[in-house]
């Protein structure tokens, strides 16, 4: 096997029995237009997109729809429960999502309060238990809490998705130590969901050993979302390669790269 084919070689990941080559999941909110949204998804190389479930607009039913621009046959739609603050609301939303889409893979998020959008782990765990019993495959947005993550796994979460910083904040990973501990202990994929602001943040998540990264605002609110989507694709790939390569050890002082022997 030559060097380049080894690098490009199979490095897919699987969640709930489905295999993907892209480790970047992108949201579809906050874009200026459906066209821009579709172009950014294309540039990101993502195979999974998150979507929300909302009432149809009865006053204007002929408005263009997301599915007209981002083909659910080409991309795996991952319906979310954004805006749900109780297990009951989240479960109700995902039952509707399953009927609308016809698949079981979903993103569960149960929020604690509006200012931080921090997850309510007690409600999240309750919802995970119910959803798993009903045959759902929930990928679960959660706190950077390895014990809660373990309980989610036991309850049937097919992926653990801790926040790196508050949703939509773009602050980057504020909890690298906890994310790494979660990665080391999980038996299911771990994805950073929320907090990424720019490409280096996505690379950091991947260098910590995460299986993937989920983001929306970092791309949608960039000055040029399509260019940022491409940057995120490169960053996720670079971070993953660096993780696989295994980084050098850190030293407190310098160590010359040129030989000391033979100095004139």
């Amino acid at each position: 096997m030559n060097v380049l084919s080894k690098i490009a070689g199979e490095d897919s990941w699987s969640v709930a029995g489905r295999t993907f080559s892209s480790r970047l999941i992108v949201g579809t909110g906050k874009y200026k237009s459906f066209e821009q949204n579709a172009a950014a998804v294309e540039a990101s190389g993502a195979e999974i997109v998150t979507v929300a479930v909302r009432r149809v607009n009865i006053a204007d039913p002929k408005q263009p729809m997301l599915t007209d621009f981002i083909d659910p046959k080409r991309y795996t739609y991952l319906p979310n429960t954004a805006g749900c603050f109780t297990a009951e609301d989240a479960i109700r939303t995902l039952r509707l999502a399953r009927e609308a889409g016809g698949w079981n893979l979903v993103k569960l998020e149960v929020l604690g309060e509006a200012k931080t959008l921090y997850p309510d782990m007690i409600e999240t765990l309750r919802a995970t238990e119910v959803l798993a019993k009903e045959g759902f495959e929930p990928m679960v947005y959660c706190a950077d809490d390895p014990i809660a993550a373990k309980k989610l796994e036991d309850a049937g979460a097919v992926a653990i998705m801790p926040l790196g910083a508050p949703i939509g904040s773009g602050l980057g990973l504020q909890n690298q130590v906890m994310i790494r501990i979660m990665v080391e202990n999980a038996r299911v994929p771990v994805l950073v969901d929320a907090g990424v602001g720019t490409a280096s943040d996505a690379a950091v998540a991947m260098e910590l050993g995460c299986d993937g990264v989920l983001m929306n605002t970092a791309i949608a609110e960039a000055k040029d979302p399509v260019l940022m989507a491409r940057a995120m694709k490169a960053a996720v790939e670079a971070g993953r390669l660096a993780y696989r390569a295994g980084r050098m050890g850190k030293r407190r002082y310098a160590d010359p790269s040129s030989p000391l022997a033979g100095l004139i």
Partner: protein
Amino acid sequence: MVYDDTLSITVNGQHRRVLKGITIADLALELGLEPTRVAVERNLEIVPRSTLGQTKIDDGDDFEIVTFVGGG
């Protein structure tokens, strides 16, 4: 109380009157929606898409009709 040939229902929080005897699929079409692109909940119970065409609307039914929109 039903006084005429119409039923009083709620769709996505809004009151509405529809003709007696129509199905949920008929309602979706009346609203300008494609039944294949939405999910319907009636009185907090999911109505399977395959049964929308057979399920008759009852007076007082409370419907939520949803679809996928952009989100993170």
